[in-house]
């Protein structure tokens, strides 16, 4: 009897899932992975065919996300592992380890900054601010951290005006499910930048616009079900009237792309997400000063809070544009220049183009 039970359960289980896999229509995209899923591979006589077929079958397997949750639960609760796929859960926050320290990447980052700095005019006022990623603030002795002291020492050795943000931020300034910082908490960063850059900080009123269904990039990776969090974008009359020119997206001329709140990555509401070159013009400005930010995505959410103090801000993301191309678009002359990158980029900088 036991043999019959085992036979029927096993055969039944695999048959049900294979039939469901065949009859359930394929999904085109995976929201958690923020990518398109593979399509059924056309048959070819090649060793890679079975790999492609297997990838397709796994990606479209019934209840795929639930199976991933089962694996995460097993790792965290049964095996008592500290992480699952390098994802840590601590105090309802999701962290992703960027360990180990990549010394080659740090060297490359420094070289990159030297290279860009050599293109600037002597009249430029140059600053560098490295944003600690949220792993810096994790309160867990077990957690493996990269060597932040080494990174900040190396940044200090570059010889630019260094603005240290480590003591200003804390773990609550970052989203629980995402890698980025929260825009509504960044006034204190603007103050610290002002202490060094002297652009004339003033307390400013912003209206908080809250979208309450935000799942950050780590949510999908963690595979653990939880409630969404809020993402807030700050507006006022001045921000609403800033004119923005995107190199890639010619149809957009606003700071916020509200449509992106319903996209794969709602953080792309700020300055339309990944963009190589953006110019912001503040027609309300009484100042003639201009700011150029060499940046990663963290700058997208703080730039709207800086535009008040400048007539024009130019954002350059060297992951998507090299120096030859941006030199055709900009002339360096008396602007403030800020290198604003997170430690995630410093430790993984090979994507920066010289």
């Amino acid at each position, binding site marked *: 009897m036991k043999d019959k039970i085992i036979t029927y359960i096993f055969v039944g289980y695999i048959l049900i899932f294979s039939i469901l896999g065949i009859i359930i229509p394929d999904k085109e995209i995976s929201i958690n992975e923020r990518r398109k899923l593979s399509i059924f591979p056309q048959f070819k006589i090649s060793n890679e065919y079975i790999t492609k077929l297997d990838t397709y079958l796994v990606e479209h397997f019934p209840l795929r996300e639930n199976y*991933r949750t*089962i694996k995460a639960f097993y790792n965290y609760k049964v095996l008592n592992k500290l992480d699952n796929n390098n994802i840590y859960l601590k105090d309802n926050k999701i962290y992703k380890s960027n360990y180990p320290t990549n010394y080659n990447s740090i060297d490359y980052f420094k070289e990159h900054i030297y290279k860009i700095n050599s293109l600037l005019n002597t009249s430029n006022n140059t600053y560098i601010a490295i944003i600690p990623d949220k792993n810096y603030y994790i309160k867990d002795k077990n957690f493996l951290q990269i060597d932040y002291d080494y990174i900040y020492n190396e940044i200090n050795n570059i010889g630019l005006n260094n603005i240290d943000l480590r003591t200003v931020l804390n773990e609550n300034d970052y989203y629980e499910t995402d890698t980025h910082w929260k825009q509504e908490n960044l006034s204190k960063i603007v103050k610290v930048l002002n202490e060094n850059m002297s652009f004339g900080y003033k307390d400013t009123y912003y209206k908080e616009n809250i979208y309450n269904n935000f799942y950050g990039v780590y949510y999908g990776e963690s595979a653990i079900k939880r409630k969404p969090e809020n993402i807030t974008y700050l507006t006022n009359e001045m921000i609403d009237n800033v004119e923005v020119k995107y190199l890639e997206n010619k149809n957009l001329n606003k700071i916020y792309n509200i449509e992106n709140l319903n996209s794969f990555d709602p953080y792309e509401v700020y300055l339309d997400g990944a963009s190589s070159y953006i110019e912001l013009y503040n027609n309300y400005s009484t100042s003639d000063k201009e700011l150029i930010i060499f940046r990663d995505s963290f700058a997208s959410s703080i730039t709207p809070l800086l535009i008040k103090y400048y007539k024009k801000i130019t954002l350059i993301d060297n992951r998507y544009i090299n120096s030859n191309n941006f030199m055709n678009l900009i002339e360096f002359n008396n602007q403030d220049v800020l290198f604003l990158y997170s430690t995630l980029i410093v430790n993984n900088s090979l994507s920066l183009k010289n």
Partner: protein
Amino acid sequence: MLFSSISFIYYFLPLLLIIYFIIPKKHKNKVLLLFSLLFYFLGEPKYIIILILSCLINYIIGNLIYKNKYKKVYLIIGILYNVIQLLIFKYTNFFIENINNIFNSNISYLYIIMPIGISFFTFQALGYIIDIYRIKHKPAKNIIDFMTYICLFPQLIAGPIVRYYDIEKDLISRETSYEKFSEGIKRFTIGLSKKVLIANVIGELLKNLIDVNLLSSWLKPILYTLQLYFDFSGYSDMAIGLGLMLGFRFLENFNYPLISATITEFWRRWHISLSSWFKDYIYIPLGGNRVGKLKNLRNIFIVWCLTGFWHGASRNFIIWGLYFAILLSIEKLFLKKYLDKTKIIKYLYTSVLIIISFLIFNTTKASNIIIEIKNMFLLNNIPLYSKETLYHIKSNFILIFISIISATPICKNIINKLNKTKWKKTINILEPITYVILLILCTAFLIDESFNPFLYFRF
């Protein structure tokens, strides 16, 4: 195609089982052969011709040996064909590399990809023709039966190396039953769990152990030994399980080798089908241990050089084989009688030597082997531990504990004992549930491997 893949478990296997159990008995071998060739073709489409050619030639040679008076001539032709085929596909570039090193020449490497499973199906074919020559069995009745024997997908690409006479009866006529089928399911699920839930996870852990220190220098070869054991024995379990589902009974390939008290015992428990193949077709024909001491040692060295070389075209495998030749010779000459008098020391001795053996197995560069061994015995200036190593031990403590316990027969013995008590009923209820949970977990792990987040705007 891998057993531990969604395409195999959820598509290939159910399709095969449905057709296999629907069709009449006389056509079952044809279905098995077709599916076995499809299994091979999906993983190695271009080289399927090598497999088919090997089957045809060995089938003909087997018949010629059996029916012809020039038995020895055909046997030699058959052995040469198989050995040359193996040498060409597996060792050509290794020979070129060594010729270039020794003679400072510059012979270009050849673009040769080794056909999957060639070491296994060639050894099965060799055993088949040698056993016909030795009149241990008759040739297969027809080419379908013979090709089914060689190509049978459960054991085609990674063993166990099955002897023809062991499954001859099953090939001609085999019985399937719920008992056999459920035994096969259990064995397959255990093998799948060994591979997916233990070996693969340990493999990931090994990738993350970067720091060099005393603790990690021991942890890495220990983990690698466990990984290799669970990977290989897991595959053998899956093969045996699939065989049982289809009505075949293959011999065991592993018998808890990591609990061995001597190296001699270890090789009676590890990859049994390979060591018994070398024993029957190389060691005994050379005279085995029925010759003088010196000749016996020579035989041991020949067999273990070949065993090492069989594992791969790389120097570390030859060193690995020689390492065992030396250890087995020492045990044979004098050490075994001293070891038999101790209890704890012999287990410690065997464990440490096995761990070092797999360190050699896993280290392709010969100079690194010395460095790694020196690290283990603090002969290099390295720290005792690091935060990283401690983190991984803490994070994987339960996994490592489960792995070590599962490498021993403790669980099996406990269940067998409980089965003789009032707990039998509870075990009968829990057993199917356990296998379902294991299948769900394995599926979850296989699916999670496909998670590939798009990091375009991650930071």
